[in-house]
C-alpha cells in the first residue's frame, strides 16, 4: 500500500468514525488547560481539580452537584461535640479503590486512608510530607495546620478529628478538593517500590471515573468506575479531556462535535451560542465577587463618608454592560446572592453623582486625587480590569475626583496591593472555596487578614465580633442572622465598592443530559449522560 492510499483509507475511516464519538457513552470535554498533576492535595488550581478530585476522588463530605450544600460522601454520617471541638465521622462500608496496571487494592476504603490523607499534609514526619518539594498550599491556606489538633482512628470505620478551636465551616472544608481521600495502601506500595511520585502521576481514588492516561498538554482519559458506590453512576462509559487553551478554538471544536462540553466561552461568542440550535447555553451566577478595595487606613479613605460618596459616584450598571457585556450582575454585598445568609434587604448605594459631590464637600474633601489599581490579568469576576478602571475614572471625574490608573505585573500586583500603606484603591476579587460565608467575609474583611487578603486593610470591631461569633456557632439559622447583620454594617462602612458577580456560562451540545453548572466552579460529569 502506498502512503497515498494509506492516507485516503485513513481519512475514510476517520470520517466514518468521527460521528460515532458520542454514541458509545464517550464524552469529550474541551478543558481550558493542563492539570498541574493529579494529587489534589498538592495544588490549588481549579483546572487541576477538574481533572483530579472531581472525576477520580471522593471526599468525606461532598458538595451536592449544582449547590453549595454538603451531603454525605465517603462518610455516611458525622456528629460534632457540643463544644464544637470534636467531629466524629462514620465511614461508608464497601467502598472500593480503583485498580490499575501497577496496583490492585486488597481491601476496601477504611479509617487508615482517612488518617493518611490528612497526616501526610499535617505531619512533617510522614514520608509524603516533603516529597519533591510538596507544600500542601491549600491545606495551609485554609489554616488546617492550626485548626486540626489530631486525627484519631477510633475503629476501622470511625475517625475523629480533634480541633484546637471550634470552626463552623469545618465540614464544608472537608468537602473541598484538597481533602480528597487517597489510598494508604497505594501510597505504601509506591513508597516501597521507590516511586512515590506515582500517587501524583497515576492517581488511584474511589471516584466515579478511573484515570487511564495523560498525555501532557493534550489529552486525559478516564473510564467508568464499575464499582462506584453511588448506585447507577456514573452514566458515561468514558470521559476524555481534550486540552484546548484558546476559547475561540474550544467553540469551534464544540461546533464541530469534537467535544460536547466546554468551559469559559469568550463573552463575545455568547450571543452566537444562544442562537446555535446544536448548543444549550447553561448559565448560573458565579460564587464570586469583583470589588474595589479602598485603603481604609490612609486619609481621606479612612472616613466612611468619603468611601460612601465615591461608591455613589460609580455607575455599576454601566460597568456590567461594558466590561461584562451583560454576563454579570451588580453586587450590593460582598457575598454572592446564591450563598446562604445573603442579605437581600441591604439597599445598594444609589448612583447619584450630585449627592456624592455634596457628601464629599461635607466631609471636607476637595481636589481629591487618587490611584486606582487595575489587574493585569483576566478573571471571571473581572474580565477587563483596565476598562473597568477607565469607566470608574470617568465617573469619578464627574464629581471632581482625579484618578490615575496604575498596574503592575500580576505577582507584583498581588504582593504590593497587600502593603498596609498602599497608595490607592485596588480592583480585585474572590471566588469561593467551600460555599461558606466565612470564606468571603473573614478572608476579605476580617482583622486577621489585614496586610494579606483583606486589601481594604479594614479592621472594624463591630463587624469582626459578628463574624467571629458566627464562626463558632454551629446552628446555621443563628449564623445566618449574624452574617446578615454583618452585611448591614459593611454597607454602612463601605470599605469596598462591591462591583459585580459574574455569570458563568457553560455551552454544552444538545445531546448532553444532566449537566449542572456547579457554583463552586468545578466541572463535574458524574451524573451526565448522552442522548442520541
Amino acid at each position, binding site marked *: 500500500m502506498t502512503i497515498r492510499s494509506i492516507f485516503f483509507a485513513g481519512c475514510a475511516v476517520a470520517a466514518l468514525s468521527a460521528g460515532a464519538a458520542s454514541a458509545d457513552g464517550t464524552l469529550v470535554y474541551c478543558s481550558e488547560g493542563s492539570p498541574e498533576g493529579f494529587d489534589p492535595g498538592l495544588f490549588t488550581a481549579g483546572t487541576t481539580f477538574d481533572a483530579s478530585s472531581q472525576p477520580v476522588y471522593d471526599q468525606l463530605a461532598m458538595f451536592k452537584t449544582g449547590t453549595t450544600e454538603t451531603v454525605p460522601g465517603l462518610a455516611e454520617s458525622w456528629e460534632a461535640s457540643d463544644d464544637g471541638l470534636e467531629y466524629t465521622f462514620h465511614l461508608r462500608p464497601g467502598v472500593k479503590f480503583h485498580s490499575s496496571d501497577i496496583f490492585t487494592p486488597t481491601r476496601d476504603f477504611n479509617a487508615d486512608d482517612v488518617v493518611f490523607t490528612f497526616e501526610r499534609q499535617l505531619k512533617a514526619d510522614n514520608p509524603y510530607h516533603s516529597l519533591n518539594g510538596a507544600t500542601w498550599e491549600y491545606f495551609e491556606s485554609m489554616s488546617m495546620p492550626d485548626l486540626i489538633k489530631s486525627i484519631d482512628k477510633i475503629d476501622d470505620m470511625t475517625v475523629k478529628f480533634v480541633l484546637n478551636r471550634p470552626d463552623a465551616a469545618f465540614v464544608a472544608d472537608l468537602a473541598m478538593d484538597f481533602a480528597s481521600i487517597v489510598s494508604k495502601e497505594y501510597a505504601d506500595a509506591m513508597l516501597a517500590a521507590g516511586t512515590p511520585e506515582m500517587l501524583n502521576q497515576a492517581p488511584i481514588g474511589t471516584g466515579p471515573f478511573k484515570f487511564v492516561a495523560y498525555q501532557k*498538554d493534550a489529552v486525559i482519559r478516564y473510564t467508568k468506575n464499575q464499582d462506584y458506590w453511588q448506585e447507577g453512576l456514573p452514566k458515561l462509559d468514558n470521559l476524555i479531556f481534550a486540552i484546548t487553551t484558546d476559547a475561540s478554538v474550544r467553540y469551534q471544536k464544540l461546533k464541530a462535535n469534537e467535544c460536547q462540553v466546554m468551559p469559559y466561552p469568550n463573552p463575545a461568542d455568547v450571543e452566537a451560542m444562544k442562537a446555535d440550535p446544536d448548543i444549550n447555553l447553561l448559565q448560573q451566577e458565579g460564587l464570586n465577587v469583583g470589588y474595589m478595595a479602598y485603603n481604609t487606613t490612609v486619609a481621606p479613605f479612612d472616613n466612611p463618608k468619603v468611601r460612601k460618596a465615591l461608591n455613589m459616584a460609580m455607575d455599576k450598571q454601566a460597568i456590567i454592560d461594558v466590561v461584562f457585556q451583560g454576563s454579570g450582575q451588580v453586587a450590593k454585598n460582598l457575598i454572592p446572592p446564591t450563598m446562604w445568609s445573603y442579605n437581600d434587604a441591604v439597599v445598594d448605594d444609589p448612583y447619584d453623582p450630585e449627592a456624592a459631590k455634596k457628601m464629599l464637600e461635607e466631609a471636607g474633601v476637595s481636589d481629591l486625587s487618587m490611584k486606582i489599581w487595575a489587574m493585569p490579568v483576566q478573571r471571571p469576576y473581572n474580565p477587563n480590569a483596565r476598562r473597568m478602571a477607565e469607566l470608574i475614572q470617568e465617573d469619578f471625574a464627574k464629581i471632581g475626583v482625579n484618578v490615575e490608573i496604575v498596574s503592575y505585573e500580576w505577582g507584583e500586583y498581588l504582593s504590593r496591593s497587600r502593603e498596609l500603606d498602599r497608595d490607592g484603591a485596588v480592583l480585585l476579587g474572590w471566588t469561593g472555596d467551600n460555599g461558606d460565608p466565612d470564606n468571603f467575609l473573614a478572608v476579605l474583611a476580617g482583622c486577621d487578614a489585614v496586610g494579606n487578603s483583606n486589601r481594604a486593610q479594614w479592621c472594624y470591631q463591630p463587624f469582626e465580633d459578628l463574624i467571629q461569633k458566627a464562626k463558632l456557632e454551629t446552628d446555621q439559622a443563628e449564623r445566618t442572622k449574624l452574617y446578615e447583620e454583618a452585611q448591614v454594617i459593611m454597607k454602612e462602612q463601605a470599605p469596598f465598592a462591591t462591583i459585580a458577580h459574574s455569570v458563568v456560562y457553560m455551552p454544552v451540545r444538545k445531546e448532553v443530559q444532566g449537566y449542572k453548572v456547579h457554583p463552586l466552579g468545578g466541572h463535574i460529569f458524574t451524573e451526565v449522560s448522552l442522548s442520541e
Partner: protein
Amino acid sequence: MLRLILFRLATFIPTFFGVTLVTFAFIRVLPGDPIVVMAGERGLSAERYAELMHQFGFDQSLPVQYWDYLWGVLHGDLGLSLVTRKPVSTEFFALFPATLELSICAMIFAVLMGIPAGVIAAVYRGRLFDRALMSSALVGYSMPIFWWALLLIIVFSGNLNWTPVSGRIDLLYYFPAVTGFMLIDSLLSGQSGAFGSAVQHLILPTIVLGTIPLAVIARQTRSSMLEVLSEDYIRTARAKGLSPWRINGVHALRNGMIPVVTVIGLSVGTLLGGAILTETIFSWPGIGKWMVDSIFRRDYPVVQGGLLMIALMVMVVNLVVDLLYGFINPKIRKR
C-alpha cells in the same frame, strides 16, 4: 574541513556558558516571583513566604543559585518544575517530539513551496506571476499568526469541515507514545485510520507555522537567483546553448542556494518562536506552549531549562548550517 569543524566547535563552548547565564538571568529580571503567583488572590503570610523561599532555595544569593544550576546542567540535571514537581528534562523530552514534528513539516512545506516559487518568480521577473507571488509573500510575512490560524480554522474546519479543529490525532485513537512522533507512532500502532487522522491534524498547523518561512525563503530565493542569473557564467552557459532547465535548475540554483540555506538555518529560531503561537491555538502539546505557561507561572527551572535546550538546538542547527556552507561552497572550507 576538519579545521572548520574544530573551529566551530571551539566557539560552541563559550556560547553555551553564555546561554546558561542569560537564561538564568532572564527569568529573574522579570518582576514577581513564583511563590506569590502560586498563592494568587489568597496571599500568604510573611513567615510562610520565607519558609517556601527557603524550601526552593530562592533565599540564597544569586551566584550560589547560578552555581547550583550550572552544576546541575553539567550533570544533565535541569531540576524539578515548581508547578508539576516533575523533572524538567522529562517534560522537555515528552513534549519536544511534537514541536519537532510540526517544525519539520512546516520547514518541508516552506522549502518545497518557497524555492520553486522563488525560482519561477526570478525567471519570469516582472511578469504577473512574479508580482502576485511577491505581494502574497509580503502579506504572508506580515500576517499575525494568531489571526491567520483562526481564519483557517473557521474556514476549513468550521465552514467546510475539511480538517479537524485542533489536536494531534482523533481522540478515538489511543495508543502509547513510542517515538513521540505522531506520524510514526500512528503507523506503529497498527490501528487503521490513525495515520490518516494524524496527517489531517497536521495540515493546518503546518500551513500556519510554515507561512512566514515560506515567504522569507521565496523572497530570498528570488533575489539571489536574480543576482546569479545576471552573472557572466550564466550568459556563457546560455551562449553554449544549454537548456533553460539546466541553466536555471543546475548552474544558477546551486550558487543561488547559499544565502537561502542561511535563511533556512536562521528560520529555525523563527519556527520555534512561531511554534509558541501555533501550538497555543491548535492545542498542540509542544514546548512552545509549555514555555509560555511556565513564564506566566514564573516556573524558574522550566524556563531556564527549556530556554537552554531550545538555545542548544538552535546552536546545533546553525553549526550544521555552517558546515553545510562548506559543502555547498568549497571556498569556505579553506578558511
